[in-house]
């Protein structure tokens, strides 16, 4: 029914209140991740059809305890709820409460009611409340609060249809506030209402309280709010404590009236027993490291099968299209630029999906907060936060979602340090580079039953992690910041994960990676294709003739000739010209212009190194023979100055170190720009990491050669 207005619903609630489960129940797969206009925070939006045929748009807002934000992702809640004049203003605010902890959950509800927004209270986790022996007079609660109350169990989906029916009925905003604003602030609130025409006193009061949440106002209007704040000596935060106490006083009276039977804590015994093991001073860490090992195992062993399939699929696609399409620059662009570009993105999907599936399980069960609990003290020594553990683990798959997950860190300095060092964690894009170089320079032998190549790979991961930690420690010493760091975090009761939530998280994270990072990787791979397919002068267009002249004295098969033409083209392309011009800079590291081309092309994305190597060493036409061919060609490459092999151990290790430390990922820089709101941090990161890579590789090469 497109003629009828679509209902806009906002979901708010405490962290761990089962809000996301409810969101998934209401919308299923019909959801997407977008951005809030003007701000960089992710917006989860889903759609559902109500029983009256109307369409509802549901926004899942980050979990908060009150309307006063403590971190970047929490601020979005007040930004949405304070803005009553935009097309995005919710028609109904659904406040999701954990029925086992009603007192804490109701604080936010009373604030939403006082903002004058039509509200519905959903009592979630009714199964646990029943287990805890809690009994509430829901009818009385609803009439006393003046808002509809709906008990549900989002994990099982009970009460969802009733909730949908309730949403079709008009919800009225509350008339009288639960917390009337204080006498002292009446003057500035009146001044603000007269100037901006804000709906009610509490909303106006919050405009004065939260200068940073007013992103939706025009700059002149924001100036007006600041002027009123100054004129009336209004200090944000002054009465926040008093307001909280007063609201909880109201809530306690309400609960005294509606609670038929209070909670009996015995039901938590099981969870407490699990905690005794999982936070044990020895077993706690043993289990944590075992879980980490499992995560690595799954990324590196289980993901390889689908990754190889994807690789073959895209190679086959390129190959068959090359035969179907008429020859020309456009079909070259498609088969050599766009399809391998898309393939380069899709190949990481298995790793990202598996990693985020596992992380979602850890979050769903409540284990992730125990990891924060276990690691906080160690992380703080290095200027990080217990919550930095999640981004650092995620960084092993891909820095982009890892950096986005730092938003939960409420201290600015700790968050910046986490963002800054996360790209030093070896992401999956480095893996193909590591694999091929290690195979080239580390003998395939076993020492004490361990594969030397495996040890080398492990060593590179540890090196990246060590450098991330050391860099964090250095930054902690450098950045001067007197912002209090704190960790006040609920340790939720352990629960079995809900597989639907895990699945949806995997889909959502993968989808946003493919589209966000994909756009950039694809664009860069097209640019690189152009740079390596065109060059100054006529050398490229007449490459066939030049090569034929050069090789007229030796007899070559058609394939060998094609390979030589491809290599000749690359050497004389713009990419080749650039590679040659940077040769003086990279020579001290042991690299020649050919490796220079690979360094340039892998600036967009590291894994491009392998493809570039394949082209440079003229095996483009037989790339489907796989790594072995690239490796043997690289091994056969001669350094004309020494007469020995080009890829000596010194060069190989120098390259490995370079790829471990260097910032060679446009998408990461773009995400850091977005997350930090400027070019300062991405540029610092680029200079720091590239400098670190250069110096370390220089030292390694000079020492080894």
């Amino acid at each position, binding site marked *: 029914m497109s003629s009828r207005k679509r209902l806009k619903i906002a979901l708010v609630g405490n962290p761990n209140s089962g809000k996301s489960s409810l969101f998934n129940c209401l919308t299923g797969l019909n959801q997407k991740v977008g951005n809030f206009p003007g701000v960089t925070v992710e917006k989860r939006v889903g759609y559902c059809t109500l029983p009256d045929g109307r369409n509802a748009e549901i926004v899942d807002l980050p979990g908060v305890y009150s309307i006063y934000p403590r971190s970047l992702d929490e601020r979005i809640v007040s930004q949405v709820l304070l803005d009553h004049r935009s097309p995005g203003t919710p028609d109904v605010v659904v406040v999701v409460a954990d029925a086992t902890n009603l007192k804490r959950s109701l604080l936010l509800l009373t604030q939403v009611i006082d903002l004058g927004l039509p509200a519905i209270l959903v009592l979630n986790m009714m199964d646990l409340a029943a287990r805890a022996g809690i009994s509430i007079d829901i009818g009385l609660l609803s009439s006393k609060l003046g808002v509809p109350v709906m008990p549900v169990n989002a994990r099982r989906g009970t009460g969802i249809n009733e909730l949908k029916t309730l949403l079709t009925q008009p919800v009225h905003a509350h008339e009288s506030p639960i917390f009337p604003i204080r006498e002292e602030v009446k003057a500035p609130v009146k001044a603000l209402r007269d100037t901006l025409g804000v709906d009610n006193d509490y909303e106006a009061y919050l405009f004065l309280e939260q200068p940073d949440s007013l992103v939706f106002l025009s700059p002149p209007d924001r100036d007006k709010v600041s002027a009123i704040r100054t004129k009336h000596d209004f200090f944000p935060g002054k009465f926040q404590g008093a307001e909280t*106490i007063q609201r909880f006083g109201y809530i306690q009276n309400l609960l005294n009236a509606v609670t038929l039977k209070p909670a009996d804590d015995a039901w938590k015994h099981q969870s407490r027993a699990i905690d005794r093991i999982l*936070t044990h001073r020895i077993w706690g860490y043993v289990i944590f490291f075992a879980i980490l090992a499992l995560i690595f195992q799954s990324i590196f062993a289980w993901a390889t099968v689908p990754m190889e399939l994807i690789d073959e699929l895209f190679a086959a696609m390129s190959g068959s299209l090359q035969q179907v399409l008429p020859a020309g620059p456009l079909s070259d662009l498609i088969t050599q630029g766009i399809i391998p570009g898309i393939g380069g993105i899709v190949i990481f999907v298995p790793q990202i999906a598996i990693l985020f599936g596992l992380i979602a399980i850890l979050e769903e069960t409540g284990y992730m907060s125990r990891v924060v609990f276990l690691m906080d003290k160690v992380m703080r020594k290095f200027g990080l936060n217990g919550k930095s553990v999640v981004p650092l683990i995620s960084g092993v798959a891909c820095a982009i979602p890892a950096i986005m997950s730092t938003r939960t860190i409420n201290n600015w300095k700790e968050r910046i340090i986490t963002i800054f060092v996360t790209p030093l964690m070896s992401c999956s894009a480095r893996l193909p580079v590591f694999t091929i170089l290690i195979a080239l320079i580390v003998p395939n032998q076993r020492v004490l039953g361990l594969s030397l190549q495996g040890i080398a790979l492990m060593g590179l991961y540890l090196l990246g992690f060590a450098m991330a930690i050391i860099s964090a420690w250095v930054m902690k010493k450098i950045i001067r910041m007197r912002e209090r760091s704190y960790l006040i975090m609920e*340790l939720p*009761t352990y629960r079995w994960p809900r597989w639907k939530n895990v699945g949806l998280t995997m889909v959502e994270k993968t989808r946003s990676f493919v589209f966000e990072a994909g756009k950039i990787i694809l664009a860069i791979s097209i640019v690189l294709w152009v740079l390596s397919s065109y060059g100054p002068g006529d050398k490229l267009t007449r490459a066939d003739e030049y090569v034929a002249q050069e090789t007229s004295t030796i007899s070559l098969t058609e394939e060998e000739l094609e390979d030589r033409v491809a290599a000749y083209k690359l050497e004389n392309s713009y990419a080749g010209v650039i590679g040659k011009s940077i040769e003086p800079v990279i020579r001290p590291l042991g690299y020649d212009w050919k490796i220079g081309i690979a360094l340039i092309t892998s600036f967009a994305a590291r894994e491009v190194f392998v493809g570039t190597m394949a082209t440079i060493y003229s095996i483009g036409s037989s790339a489907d023979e796989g790594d072995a061919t690239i490796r043997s060609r690289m091994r056969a490459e001669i350094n004309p100055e020494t007469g020995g092999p080009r890829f000596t151990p010194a060069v190989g290790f120098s390259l490995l170190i370079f790829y471990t430390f260097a910032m060679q990922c446009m998408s990461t820089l773009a995400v850091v720009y977005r997350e930090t709101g400027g070019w300062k941090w991405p540029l610092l990161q680029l200079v720091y990491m590239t400098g670190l890579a250069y110096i370390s590789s220089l030292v390694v090469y000079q020492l080894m050669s």
Partner: protein
Amino acid sequence: MRGNVRNVAEMKPGEVGVISGFEDQHIGVKLMEMGCLPGSTIRYNFKAPLGDPICVSILGYDLSIRLEEAAAISIIS
């Protein structure tokens, strides 16, 4: 001799106290928003293996706070 004003950081595992106030208003406001109000009981459950942070129970749920924050919560025991 210890005075009768103590804070949560000085409690022993398993001990229960009643919150009397906050040394630090900044932290106090955040704790109060999570239901950690003056007059309510707080139980010290256990500390993290490295001694910090600690796990306490308030309002029937478990909360992780650092020793620094725990020291800001005054109790009567």
